């Protein structure tokens, strides 16, 4: 059994037997892969804390017949603040869910690993926490090759918001691959057009401009209004749904939190 080690964040953790868990891990060097953590469900197991969801751990691994086997662990970062506020934790799970369903096994991307790690770090403190999720989504779309063109109308190429800044009626079109100016946006009648006000448009532009490494600047952004946050959320959700061909299960719980508050 060849042994090696890898840093990885736990994206998913499922019961495998009375005592064992199957982990879905995301590592910068390996990409997504699965490993079995034997005995992790026993109360006094060295593995249980380090194999918890959303934990960044240095894993000692051995290649088993069908699955990698966790042999050693050292917690590198456990993002403890996520465990104290429900919206932060629920968004953290969403980021893991989203990444888990955006990548293939064994396709390493140090950039996506860093994206997840910085997203989780931002979620610990950022207010509102959903801003970290929006940044994550914009950057993820870009990394997957689906970056929408946010700075000019996808039909007439007019710069946006530009001269239309006071009209507020923009949209994000998935089929056009970018935003639409108020002349071409039809969010009321065209299912493909997600309505964006000037605030939401500017928010998306800012989030994209921050880049993969720019999460530290999130805390200093001017506060976006609830309407802008909602519009950005819905537009990005629709893009992700079309490109990933699914809705994340973790969204149901996030939505139920939003509706109950």
């Amino acid at each position, binding site marked *: 059994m060849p042994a090696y080690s890898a840093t990885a964040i736990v994206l998913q953790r499922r019961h495998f037997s009375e005592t064992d868990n199957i982990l879905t891990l995301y590592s910068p060097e390996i990409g997504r892969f699965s490993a079995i953590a034997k005995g992790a469900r026993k109360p006094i197991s060295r593995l249980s804390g380090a194999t918890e969801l959303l934990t960044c751990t240095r894993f000692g691994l051995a290649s088993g017949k069908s699955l990698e086997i966790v042999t050693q662990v050292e917690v590198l970062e*456990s993002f403890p603040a996520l465990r104290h506020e*429900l919206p932060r934790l629920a968004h953290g799970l*969403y980021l893991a*869910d989203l990444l888990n369903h955006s990548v293939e096994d064994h396709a390493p991307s140090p950039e996506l690993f860093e994206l997840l790690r910085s997203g989780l770090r931002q979620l610990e403190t950022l207010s509102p926490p959903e801003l970290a999720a929006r940044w994550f989504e914009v950057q993820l779309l870009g990394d997957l090759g689906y970056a929408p063109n946010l700075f000019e109308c996808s039909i007439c190429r007019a710069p946006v918001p530009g001269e239309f800044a006071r009209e507020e009626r923009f949209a994000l079109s998935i089929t056009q691959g970018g935003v639409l100016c108020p002349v071409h946006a039809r969010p009321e009648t065209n299912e493909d057009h997600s309505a964006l006000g000037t605030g939401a448009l500017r928010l998306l532009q800012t989030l994209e401009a921050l880049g993969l490494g720019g999460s530290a600047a999130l805390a200093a952004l001017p506060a976006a209004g609830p309407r802008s946050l909602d519009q950005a959320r819905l537009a990005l959700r629709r893009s992700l749904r079309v490109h990933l061909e699914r809705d994340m299960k*973790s969204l149901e719980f996030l939505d*139920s939190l939003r509706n109950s508050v």
Partner: protein
Amino acid sequence: MAVYYPKPLARLVSEFEKLPGIGPKSAQRLAFYIMRLPEEETRALADALTTIKASIKFCRICHNYSEGEICDICTDPRRDHTLLCVVAEPRDLIAVEKTGEFKGVYHVLQGVISPLDGIGPDKLRIKDLQQRVAEGDPRVEEVILATNPTVEGDTTSMYVAGLLKPLGVKVTRIAHGMPVGGDLDYADQATLIQAYEYRREL
């Protein structure tokens, strides 16, 4: 492997294999054991298996397994009905009962919120809990959340606490951190952080 057995035996072995903690070897051992049992003993076993589903239901108040409409704990006047312990599963209730320390009553959620698996609050006995605390007779004074210190356990506890606190009830959660008999040197960072958070004055 099943080809070595006559069909009825293969069926029994494969049913045993579905049980938790039972591998092919143990399944075979159990099946052969049952083959050697006297007729009346296999009948008693079969009878116990077929009646369990029909005769055990969930208590209308706490949602634990119960023989009647309301379980023995909920009907017991010697228990403190102002103290309500919330657990995820019936087996957690049994674990707390075994300590012999807890004299209050229970509420079994029948699972935990697990966003990644699409298990939300509406799939659990959370609404019933909210209603029970709101309309409680006698009045519930303290709700103790006894969920596992996992992400799902934390999620469930924070969600339930958010619902119950506005009802004016005291909401606590069982402490977690270092295991009894554990060794600081062996504890991971996540466990130690929790142990520090839940420290208390001596």
